[in-house]
């Protein structure tokens, strides 16, 4: 039984990180209907900035986490301002091509730095011995990572539900013309969505980096992993991203915990999420929480 709970705990840890990674992706899609292919690169950059500030500059890790979130906030905002602002109103495929281009550019920039070729790992500031409770164990890094994730996701939900800017973002995602006509600056809302996405990506990157080590390919892969997560949750739902993130984490842990090694199976954690995704989409094509528009004819 404790094996089961162990899998549940690791599932939630991985899942909450998926949720945080997916959050930024959903924010951008929700407000501007743009699929940001370069999201994984932004996650990786956030992690590298934290490392550079902590190890090379010598700032305490929590301060550099905050600094990295602020830097990514402004970096993403400038990306929107420079590359995407002029594409407002253009066909969606052109916009997606631009984010693919952005992905290559960011890849190129990262390969110029040591992070492109060398694996680093964060110095451990937290106790190394994991916490054990009745046969179930969780490392301090994982625990702190989950706590930070929960705080951030809670903050984002509050922001969306309550703050004026959050409400304008919802209005823009609902009807752009109407939003403009009541005095909301749509470009500004797009910029803000990118900025918030950058901020959450940086946090996600730093947490992943602390748990798995700083490997560019691993970090970058999170930009791909978010796809099944956000499609499962419904592309434009923040709640959906969180729930689907956790579901995905649990599925993966159960798959590798119970299926691998049985009947000659291996690497099921990488396949099963997609199989389940396909099955769910058969019944709920808009994902679990996605907006299902009913058109009156």
């Amino acid at each position: 039984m404790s094996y089961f709970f162990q899998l549940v705990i690791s599932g939630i840890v991985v899942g909450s990180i998926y949720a945080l990674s997916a959050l930024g992706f959903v924010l951008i899609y929700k407000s501007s209907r743009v699929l940001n292919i370069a999201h994984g690169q932004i996650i990786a950059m956030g992690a590298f900035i934290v490392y550079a500030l902590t190890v090379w500059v010598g700032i305490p890790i929590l301060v550099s986490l905050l600094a990295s979130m602020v830097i990514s906030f402004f970096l993403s905002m400038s990306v929107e301002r420079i590359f995407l602002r002029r594409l407002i109103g253009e066909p969606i495929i052109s916009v997606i091509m631009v984010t693919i281009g952005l992905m290559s550019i960011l890849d190129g920039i990262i390969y110029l730095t040591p992070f492109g070729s060398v694996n680093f790992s964060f110095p451990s500031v937290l106790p190394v011995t994991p916490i054990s409770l009745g046969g179930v164990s969780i490392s301090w890094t994982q625990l702190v990572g989950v706590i930070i994730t929960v705080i951030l996701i809670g903050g984002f939900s509050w922001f969306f539900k309550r703050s004026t800017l959050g409400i304008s973002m919802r209005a823009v995602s609902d009807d752009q013309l109407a939003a403009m006509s009541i005095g909301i600056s749509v470009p500004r809302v797009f910029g803000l969505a990118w900025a918030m996405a950058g901020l959450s990506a940086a946090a996600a990157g730093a947490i992943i980096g602390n748990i798995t080590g700083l490997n560019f390919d691993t970090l970058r892969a999170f930009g791909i992993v978010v796809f099944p997560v956000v499609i499962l949750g419904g592309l434009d739902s923040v709640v959906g991203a969180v729930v689907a993130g956790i579901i995905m984490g649990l599925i993966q842990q159960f798959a590798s915990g119970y299926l691998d090694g049985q009947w000659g199976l291996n690497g099921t954690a990488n396949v099963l999420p997609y199989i389940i995704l396909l099955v769910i989409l058969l019944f709920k094509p808009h994902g679990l929480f996605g907006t299902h528009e009913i058109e009156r004819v």
Partner: protein
Amino acid sequence: MKTLTISDVTLTFGGLNALTEVDMRFEQGLITSIIGPNGAGKTSLLNCISGFYHPSKGEIHYGDRPLTNASPHQVAKLGIARAFQNLELFRGMTVLDNLLLARHHKLNYSFLHALVHFGKASRVEAENRKVVEQVIDFMELEPYRKRNVGSLSYGIQKRVEVARALTMEPEVLLLDEPMAGMNIEEKEDMVRFIMDIQKERQTTIILVEHDLGVVMDISDNIYVLDFGELIGYGKPSEVAQNPKVIEAYIGKG
């Protein structure tokens, strides 16, 4: 007196003139209608005023403020509100939320104020709710306040759209075919609302409408467009006698 003036406006889409050297004046507190056959450029003209299009030539002023290159949200903040021809409502929200959202631009308290939610923020919020309730009352939307907009009938949705514009307490109200697709009863209601808005709020109203009976009844002035050109202007009785207007509508005899 704040007048909305359009001087010598030309709007070109790749060599095709949607509007050609159009001059118009909209006097404060009057209902001015723009009529013309389909494709005459009526909606294009409204789009120029609301900042969705920018004229290729010519200028638009509200009072002494230039609007020529203003963006839609800036125009909205100057007190020029609009109800669209094809419904543009926040369909996922209730009627009440749609209207509250339109008070968004009045929310000028800081983020910190919003966070603690007392003092200025709660005062502004209370004021906003009061205005919204007045508009709901005025537009007779009480039965629908908590209903999701998407679930309401077309006629009521049109009314919500006008209500949302009113919630912004506009000085100028642009109405793009507010009566299109309505039955007689709904039309009569809408006419009554428009006349009440003019009487009680002294709002300048710019009306684009195909129902000539209604237009002749309630307009103070009428402009007639045809193929993007101004072909007639005057009081309803004058416009009805104008041979060019008759030709555009009925054809050459």
